[in-house]
């Protein structure tokens, strides 16, 4: 089991352990020399492991007919991968961490593959058997790993394209792509004789196309609306206007909560230019809505008029940060067309006071619903 080389290194390990112990006891326990000896132990132990693992110079298991060092080794992809990985690691060290991480991944992956290939090459004299051994050990990792990487790449490229083209174009374009893929799949499934040859053309071409499109899209940047949307969170509070006209802030921000109808405590309706409200469980109109304090509560807004309306809730005012500037508090729904509904979810920590009553209004419509927070 232990090859000549590994015996040597095992011996060296043992010797260095002894030396270290002696050194620590007899010479100087805190000296740098101890560090060096420990380093020696580590490297000798590592080397023994490596040489056991790679069955270095273990001619017993290899058929006498073939001396592993005599003939050329089989072609191997891994040295260049490892070199590439090392270069990426170093490049990443100096520049982008992401390159470094990718480099580590490539380095580790290539290294493992290399080790296993080297190990399997020495498994027996039979090359076919050796490659089977290799496939058995690594197949379980390679295929899922590769497909995961591929999937990530494809998904990433697709996402770049999606982000770059306009919404409608994206929809149409990818419907077409999906149709083409479906059709191709159908053809390949039906025509078994064509499959391999055609696939070997179609796949590289489509991947190349995808790659080009993805890179181009990534370079050309995200579509304008998205860039705008990303910037909108930085809208100053004074730009958050809840008026009759379209608001840059609210009308681009679709309400991001979709609460269940169960949670709706009241319905506010605008009809014939009049605002009215009903509370859940009460079969009559009310002009005051009471919302429990500090509890997320949802109000439904229903527009039955022709013009677009929005529901605004006024929640008094507050000072901005530590300054003395006072600004109104409140929020509103998006502009809502005829017959449509929107919800507004509120969590109000402080009660209304007599000086600053809360209310629901609909700009452009008459009436106001008082909002009471006890």
């Amino acid at each position, binding site marked *: 089991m232990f090859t000549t080389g590994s015996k040597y290194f095992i011996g060296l390990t043992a010797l260095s352990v002894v030396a270290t112990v002696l050194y620590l006891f007899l010479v100087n326990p805190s000296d740098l020399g101890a560090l060096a000896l420990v380093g020696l132990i580590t490297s000798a132990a590592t080397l023994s492991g490596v040489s056991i693992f790679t069955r270095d110079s273990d001619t017993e298991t290899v058929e006498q007919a073939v001396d592993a*060092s005599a003939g*050329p080794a*089989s*072609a*191997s*992809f891994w040295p260049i991968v490892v*070199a590439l990985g090392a*270069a990426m690691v170093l490049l990443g060290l*100096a520049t982008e961490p992401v390159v470094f991480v990718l480099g580590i991944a490539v380095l580790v992956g290539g290294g493992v593959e290399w080790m296993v290939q080297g190990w399997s090459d020495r498994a027996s004299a039979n090359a076919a058997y050796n490659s089977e051994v290799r496939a058995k050990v690594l197949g379980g990792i390679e295929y899922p790993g590769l497909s995961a990487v591929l999937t990530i790449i494809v998904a990433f490229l697709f996402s770049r394209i999606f982000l770059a083209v306009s919404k409608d174009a994206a929809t149409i374009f990818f419907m077409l792509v999906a149709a083409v893929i479906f059709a191709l799949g159908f053809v390949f499934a039906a025509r078994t004789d064509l499959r391999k040859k055609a696939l070997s053309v179609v796949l590289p071409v489509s991947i190349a196309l995808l790659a080009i499109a993805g890179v181009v899209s990534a370079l050309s940047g995200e579509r304008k609306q998205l860039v705008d949307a990303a910037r909108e969170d930085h809208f100053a509070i004074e730009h958050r206007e809840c008026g009759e006209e379209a608001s840059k802030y609210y009308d681009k921000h679709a309400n991001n909560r979709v609460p269940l109808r169960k949670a709706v405590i009241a319905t506010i309706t605008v009809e014939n230019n009049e605002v009215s409200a009903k509370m859940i469980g009460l079969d009559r109109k009310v002009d005051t809505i009471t919302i429990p304090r500090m509890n997320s509560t949802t109000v439904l807004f229903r527009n039955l008029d022709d013009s677009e309306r929005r529901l605004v809730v006024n929640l008094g005012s507050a000072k901005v940060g530590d300054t003395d500037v006072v600004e109104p508090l409140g929020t509103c729904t998006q502009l809502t067309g005829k017959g449509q509904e929107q919800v507004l979810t509120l969590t109000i920590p402080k009660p209304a006071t007599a000086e600053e009553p809360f209310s629901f209004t609909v700009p452009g419509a008459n009436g106001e619903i008082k909002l009471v927070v006890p």
Partner: protein
Amino acid sequence: MTTIDTHVGVSTHTTGSSFVASVGQWVTSSDHKKIGRLFIGLSLLYAIAVAVIGALIGFERINPDGAQFFDADAALQLTQLHRHALVFGLLAPLFIGLAIAVVPMQVGARAIALPRLAQLGFWGWALGTDLVLISFIANGGPGGGSSDMVDLYLLGLGLSLAGLLAGAVSVATTVLTSRAPGMGLMDVPAFSWSALMGSVASVLSLPVAIGTVAYLYVDHTYSQTAFGDNKVINTWLGWVYAQPQTFVLIVMALGVLAEIAPVTARTRQPLRPVLLAGIALITTATLGAVTQTAHVLDLSGTTGDKLSSTILFLFFNGLPLLGALVTVAVAMLSFKEGRPGVNASFAFALLGALMLLAGVAGSFVQHIGDAALVGTSFGEGVTAYVVYGGLLAALGGITYWAPKLWGVVLDDKKVLGLAGLGFIGVVLASLPLYVAGFADQPVDAVNDFDYSGPLGLWNVLAGAGSAVIALVVLAYVGLLFAAVRKGAGASDDPWDAHTLEWSIPSPAPADNFAALATVSSSEPLLDVKPSQEVPA
């Protein structure tokens, strides 16, 4: 003795004929000849580039005001790049590549000892050098202004050194472990011997360089206190570019001469042990360089100081010179025994060796303290002599082994012409720098020195010499390409040579030897064709 004739790896990847397949074949091949050729090809490209840069630097040093083409930053990077590319883009990879390609065949091995390590070595060196190039372009060489790129320079340098180290390890291991049955260490052909010496010396010195790079990197990135900032990188790392460290590799250049000379003279090498000893002498002495001990001859101080300085000087500078002289002399001794005759490869090798001698001698002179040549462009001249001399010798070797590596014999006359031209180029590129050195032109400076008067002329001459070299290499590569494209089939043994590689077909098959013969002398091929031997 075996009759196994299939090698899985070989048989499976030789079938593809498309471009992709052939690229794949080159990228994945663990055939030492392919790896060696990759090394050689890429370093010849660097040779052209570095010669062009040399020319630019020469022409830059005309104006009394300095700046001609480049601003100060660019000029600094250019000189640093020039220096780097000379040593690690050209000299080192060229010879390690030649050794990887040739040595296994010479010692009768079916493959290089650590094929995938050699493969990794090439890619590591190539990608590392690319990183270094990138860093230079982005103003990141020693003394450069971009901190990140200085990091990258150091890291790339480390990677490329590690790549070369891997190549050297493979070569040394091959000579030590994979020799044909019956071949004692003293029976190893002269080139393989020099390759062994060169790679062992590299194995011993490159880790020191890598360690230094690592220290510098850590220091530069994290503390900048132990070594100082990037301005002093040269102080710590300069030795790897300088003599006598560069001699570590020129032993292989002399090995080429020692290999070709007896073949050309059609005789057994006389005084063979002396030759091998001479080669060994150079590296042994050179190795002291890694200690960074001062070896400038300094005759001030006490007698003891004088004595130690003299001994060190003689050891580190005298012994290499002695070894080089011995090697060249003993190699040429074969012409005394055999019949004189000149062919292109011999011419290249001989001229290269002479240039090297000039360089080694220059190094000797440079280190005499009283000559006050340290820190002048005399050192640049030495480097130019050594590197370009090595280049000529390597071209000789490539010409010599082309039948085995590419299956072609180059047109002797054309190559002979190139050898002459190359000689002129090297002398032009180097000698004026010696002169300028005596005129106290500072090393590595480009713009901040008054180049007026005759100095300008010397620099123009040096630049012209570099340009000539660039043309020579370009022409040589063109010749090689044309020959390979024509595919003129070379015979198995066109030179009527002595060593094992000529016993196999040209070009050599992937596994070199179908059968391994037992050898019993240093010139095994001469043993089996005694009729052709010239009577002593």
